């Protein structure tokens, strides 16, 4: 199992760091901006609902980059490192590594350039570039990339159904919170339409369009004697993660 897939309910972590700022260091803003630009220039947007003219955008970026790619990187980390590094440090590691592994840049030129900026932090960034790149990124921010696809097919579960969460095989990426595996809850809402995911998660089971449900879990069914009274957890779960509860099948 991956610790990153099972954070919910992990014990003994101590107090929460209530840091209200979004960016705790100025540099973090830059990696956030780069990530958003990559999502807005991702080649998969040519097939997205707004049908972005991505092939006509004069950017050298020719890859798919979505939340799934960023998340996969974080989920691939050593679990201790996941806790060691701050949020945007993980982004910087993952995104820098991506551009090197895909051949856009080399580790050597990144190191050399970083040494220049480390030596002289006041050194300016290069200027210029084709404005149509920025226009596409801003258009993506304004119009988005919905995972909803096609009309709703007949959902397998209805409101009020008792459902048990499958214990699907662990994969490099999932949208199933680990603390819900094997647990039984009640369908409280069937979302309209079917929802795909950025990529196939293989034996984990999501990717193709499918119904999604809001499932209500009672605290004692999740946490046993550690449960807080009256604290109900809702999971938003893809149909592939659910099966009819055993108690209903009898």
């Amino acid at each position, binding site marked *: 199992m991956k610790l990153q897939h099972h*954070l*919910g*309910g*992990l014990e003994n*972590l101590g*107090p*929460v*760091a*209530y*840091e*209200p700022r*979004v960016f*705790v260091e100025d*540099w973090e803003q*830059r*990696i956030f*901006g*780069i990530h958003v*630009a990559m999502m807005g220039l991702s080649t998969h947007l040519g097939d997205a609902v707004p049908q972005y003219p991505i092939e006509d955008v*004069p950017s*050298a970026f020719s890859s798919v980059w979505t939340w799934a790619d960023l*998340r996969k990187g*974080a989920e691939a980390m050593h679990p201790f490192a996941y*806790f060691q590094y701050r*949020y945007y440090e993980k982004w*910087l590691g993952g995104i*820098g590594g991506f551009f090197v592994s895909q051949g*856009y*840049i080399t580790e050597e030129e*990144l190191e050399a*350039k*970083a040494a220049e*900026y*480390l030596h002289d*932090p006041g050194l300016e*960034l*290069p200027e210029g*570039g084709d404005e149509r790149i920025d226009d596409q*990124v*801003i258009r993506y*921010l*304004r*119009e*988005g990339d*919905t*995972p909803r696809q096609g009309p709703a097919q007949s959902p397998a579960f209805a409101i009020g159904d008792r459902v048990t969460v499958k214990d699907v095989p662990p994969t490099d990426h*999932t949208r199933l*919170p680990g603390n819900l595996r094997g647990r039984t809850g009640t369908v409280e809402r069937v*979302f309209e339409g079917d*929802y795909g995911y950025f990529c196939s998660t293989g034996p984990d089971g999501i990717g193709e369009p499918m119904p999604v449900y*809001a499932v209500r879990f009672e605290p004692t069914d*999740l946490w046993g004697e550690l449960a*807080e009274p*009256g*604290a109900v*957890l*809702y*999971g*938003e779960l*893809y149909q592939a993660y659910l099966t009819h509860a055993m108690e209903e099948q009898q």
Partner: protein
Amino acid sequence: MTVQFGYPEDREARSAARVRALEALLIEKGVITGATVDKVLGHFETDMTPLNGAKIVARAWTDPEFAERLVKDTPAAVAELDLPIGMDGAEGEHLQAVANTPGVHNLVICTLCSCFPWPVLGLPPYWYKDPTFRARAAREPRVVLKETGLDLDPSVELRVWDSSGHSRWFVIPQRPAGTDGMTEQELAALVTTESMIGIAEVPSPAA
């Protein structure tokens, strides 16, 4: 933030230099332009801020029928208001409001990553993304709320929404006492990001 691990003394300077080097190389190679990152950041500084959420909440407080529509079909209700372009854009494609009542308090979390309704609340604060919050809020949300100053009555049902699917949840907090006769604009000024995530209530202006 955790200090359990050792870090190099120039930790932040190294990251700052590396991200600047990465941005410079991406500009040189034509992946992005010299203005892309600034334009992205500008979008969040001027258009997509928690002010949008505050305006939505204030309207819900003053118009019960809007409040009802807001919970039932959040994107359609949000589209009724005069807000910046892109409320249904990135990370706002499937907004979903949940309303607090005297008997129910809602809290939004994301145990798998950091899903957040950008157009309504802007970008998530650090604590929301911190693994400790994500882990603890799932199992002991009442204790976590108490630590931040919200001592929820035991009779109140606490609903924790783990953002593992397509929806981007946000909370319509309860209107505080002592706000009778206030304008929508005055009410919006009271609404905090924390209250729209659910780790706080909106304080009464009289308090």
